[in-house]
């Protein structure tokens, strides 16, 4: 009986382990945004946190004050006037890989993905869809993705500078 019970428990363990989802994470992913019409309007954030699970769930978070511009003056304007980072310190994205079936997290390779979800920034949440790529290298994902964000959508009054920015995501996961 004891043997049977321990076998049963052991088998339960094996089954639940096989079912357990695999989660990859990073604390230091990279996101760059730039204005298509002005080379100087460009900033980098190297402290993007992100999780990507093999069930397709994807999250990204970053701190607005973590964006570094070439020019200190622009960085100040960006924080104080446009994104109001004292009031809204963080931007968050929560979404899913739409075409999850086409991605094999256990096999090295390059997979095109479509990610859809909610981006919250400057106190406003909007649904966005982005095309990107997941490269699995030695079992670890690298995500690259590019999309545009309209300033108006997030109630950012930056008309003097730009109406939209291009966002480039590049995250290496552990």
């Amino acid at each position, binding site marked *: 009986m004891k043997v049977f019970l321990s076998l049963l428990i052991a088998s339960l363990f094996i089954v639940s382990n096989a079912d357990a989802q695999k989660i990859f994470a990073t*604390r*230091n*992913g*990279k996101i760059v945004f730039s204005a298509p019409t002005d080379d100087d309007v460009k900033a*980098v954030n*190297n*402290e993007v*946190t992100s999780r990507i699970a093999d069930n397709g769930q994807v999250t990204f*978070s*970053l*701190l*607005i*004050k*973590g964006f*570094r511009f070439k*020019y*200190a*003056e*622009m*960085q100040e304007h960006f*924080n104080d006037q446009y994104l109001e*980072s*004292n009031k809204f*310190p*963080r931007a968050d994205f929560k979404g899913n890989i739409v075409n999850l079936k086409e991605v094999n997290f256990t096999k090295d390779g390059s997979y095109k993905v479509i990610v859809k979800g909610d981006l919250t920034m400057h106190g406003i949440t909007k649904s966005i869809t982005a095309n990107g790529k997941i490269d699995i290298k030695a079992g670890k994902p690298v995500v690259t993705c590019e999309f545009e964000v309209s300033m108006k959508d997030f109630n950012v009054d930056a008309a003097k500078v730009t109406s939209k920015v291009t966002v480039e995501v*590049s995250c*290496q996961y552990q």
Partner: protein
Amino acid sequence: MLAFTVVGIITGGIIVYRIYTKPHRDVTREQGVQLSAQSLYDAFKTNETAANAKYLNKAIELNGEVAEVTTNQDGNTVVNIKTNDLMFVINCTFKIQPGELKAGQNITFKGICTGYIPDFNVVINEGVLVKIN
């Protein structure tokens, strides 16, 4: 009229010059608010709004135990500092190479706090090592 134009051009020139040459903040010249990595985490976990008001964009001097040393995707040194939550660290990106640091060492460093990401970390950047304790 000519004098006005000249003055205008010079003033405009100075404004543009200043915008493009204003230096970035240098945390080494600032007096940091001193506290432990654990107290910084506790402050954000207990009340994010209050902690933001107190620490966001401030120079802070932290002490704590090194959990791990890594490099970010652009080659800068990143030191994660332990808290009592296994999953949560203080994530500090150094602007000046801190030298050889190892997990388990207790260090004091200075940097600028950019905020809190729940379930992940508090972020400090522009980090400089003050001392190894």
